[in-house]
């Protein structure tokens, strides 16, 4: 019903997705203290897209990402990254956690944090060399943070901290990125920088899965959407799936700003008219 991207059953026989699909999830269920947070999630995300994961608070957006990355245990279900389990495909995946998830008083500089993105490549027992620091500095340059490389991270603004996190993800040099609310609480300049970065990653053929809160910007920033509220309500190209009816299903009664967002979206010119209606 939701287009070609929502057909996991086709590939489910081997409990592993096709090798050209960046992220394939089947029957994923996650529970905290026996209360399900995600229920029977099936997903198959296309390569080279900017994908928004959208849903109300507590809908399980972060949980989805964390369970895919094996950070929290799954009650059931299978995940594959480019056709194979995450544990052997780590090198293809980059992760930007929520900014609040770390202690910004930690005694490291912005450059140190970015260098952490290189740790997997550097390997065990080897120190961070000058070459690695230069590589980290180049990533900082890409997000406009090179002048702050030596700053201790608590002396950066929220937006700057977010950019450091993004630079670290760039240093991971992944094909599939998971970003947990990179736009939360950032200034306008950082928002612009992040969008530019996402577009650049896309132009390099990379796939970004971004937990996003601001419904108004979904149609402009993302070309693919996953609407989630414990279950996947809809997933597919933005113009097909990001409809009022689907959003109403996702958010239930909690729709206030929504109508306005959709109204604006309806006025805006669309890249290409949707071939299929999302929820009709």
């Amino acid at each position: 019903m939701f287009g070609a991207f929502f057909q996991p059953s086709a590939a489910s026989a081997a409990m592993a997705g096709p090798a050209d699909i960046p992220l394939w999830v089947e029957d994923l269920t996650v529970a905290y203290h026996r209360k399900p947070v995600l229920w029977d999630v099936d997903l198959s995300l296309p390569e080279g897209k900017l994908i928004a994961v959208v849903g109300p608070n507590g809908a399980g957006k972060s949980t989805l990402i964390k369970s895919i990355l094996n950070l929290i245990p799954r009650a059931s279900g299978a995940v594959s990254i480019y056709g194979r389990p995450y544990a052997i495909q780590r090198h293809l995946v980059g992760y930007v956690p929520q900014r609040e998830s770390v202690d910004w008083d930690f005694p490291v500089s912005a450059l140190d944090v970015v260098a952490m993105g290189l740790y997997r490549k550097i390997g065990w027992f080897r120190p961070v060399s000058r070459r690695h620091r230069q590589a980290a500095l180049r990533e900082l340059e890409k997000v406009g943070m090179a002048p702050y490389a030596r700053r201790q991270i608590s002396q950066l603004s929220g937006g700057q901290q977010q950019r450091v996190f993004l630079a670290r993800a760039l240093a991971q040099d992944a094909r599939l990125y998971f970003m947990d609310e990179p736009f939360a609480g950032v200034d306008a300049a950082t928002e612009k920088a992040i969008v530019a970065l996402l577009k650049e990653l896309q132009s390099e053929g990379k796939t970004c899965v971004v937990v996003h809160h601001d419904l108004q910007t979904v149609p402009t920033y993302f070309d693919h959407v996953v609407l989630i509220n414990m279950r996947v309500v809809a997933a597919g190209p933005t113009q097909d799936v990001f409809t009022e009816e689907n959003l109403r299903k996702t958010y239930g009664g909690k729709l206030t700003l929504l109508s306005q967002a959709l109204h604006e979206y309806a006025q805006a010119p669309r890249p290409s008219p949707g071939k299929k209606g999302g929820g009709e």
Partner: protein
Amino acid sequence: MDWTVLDSWIVVTGMLSAMSCALLGNYLVLRRMSMMGDAISHAVLPGLAIAFLISGSRDSLTMMVGAVLIGVMTAFLVEAIQKLSGLDRGASMGVIFTTLFALGLILIRQAADHVDLDPGCVLYGAIELTPLDVYEWGGLEIPRAAVTNAAMLLVNLAFVLAFYKELKITSFDPALATTIGINASGMHYVLMTLVAATTIAAFESVGSILVIAMLIVPGAAAHLLTDRLARMLALSLVIAGLSAVFGHIGAITVPGWFGLRDTSTAGMMAVAAGAIFVCVFFFAPHHGVTGRAFNRILLSMRITRDDILAFLYRFQELAPEGSPPVSASDVENAVKAGSAARLVMWDLVRRKYVDRSAEGLSLTEEGRGLARSLVRSHRLWETYLCNKMGFCAEDVHYSAHRLEHVTDKALQDQLVEEAGYPFQDPHRKTIP
């Protein structure tokens, strides 16, 4: 003060145990789990007792194994209870370690009735007695405790150096560490194992209660002194070493001043570490209380300096050609900064921004440039705030007055552009 070879050995043993504790303690401080060190150091007690009851010997290796097992179990139980019950980590630790500690005390009491294991010694340490129990090594008599702690320090150093990156990333961002294949919870348990082992090694010298001081205080003080991890580790070692030296000297001299006998070196080491922490707390350059106050004073001096320069500029702008310079007391009244103004004026003269003659003060060529830029910022802000944001009321002056201190060249250029290349501010004064 009679310093003997025994005293030297006491200091060396104290330094070694304090440093091996402090090194790992840094990570406890950074992981916000300082009390875990406390929990483990108390909870290992039954491990010691059980190992002793089973083996019947005070052989350190047996004791070490027993205690490390219980120590790791403590860390494991704390996590498990926290996860399963939903209690916070503090409560979970409180339940586990008090229970284990009490169990340990009971066991030691039972054992002490027929064997020689002194609870007091376990709790408070007996560093003064350590030089009496020695290894013969190449004609040298080295206290056993010094050897144990040196070995422990080497193990900890090797661990921290070999896994420097991994410890750093698992402490800072365990989620990212896990996603790139560095097992954060595995790292946690290895660290806890070493903390337990280090605690036991330091037991004899500083006792289980004071071990926590050596685990936490040097790292906490070092964190106030620097914002780089490697420097923090090095500084914590220095602070730990100094606490041992000052602690022992203090223990044998300070009570003498009051006509008392020597006091416990371990106790004095903890006091010395505490004293160092207090000094750092007040005098650390960036994070210290005094340092921050000092920075505030510097800032207010800079603002006063800007005010004086701008005042002199405006005065010269208004005064007819050839009129006498403005007197120092007029400047003082104008900037309303009291005696600080006098200090700043002295500094401005010293830096050759201002000429001081018998009649008063005037700007030098260099001072004039600086002052012009300030006045320019001020008037640009007034123009911008009035034309672009509609703040034309009288208080626009005060906003501009605050903003002029933080406006650099780049911001000025941006303002010029935003305000539409103005020549005059809203008060019809020329923008220099």
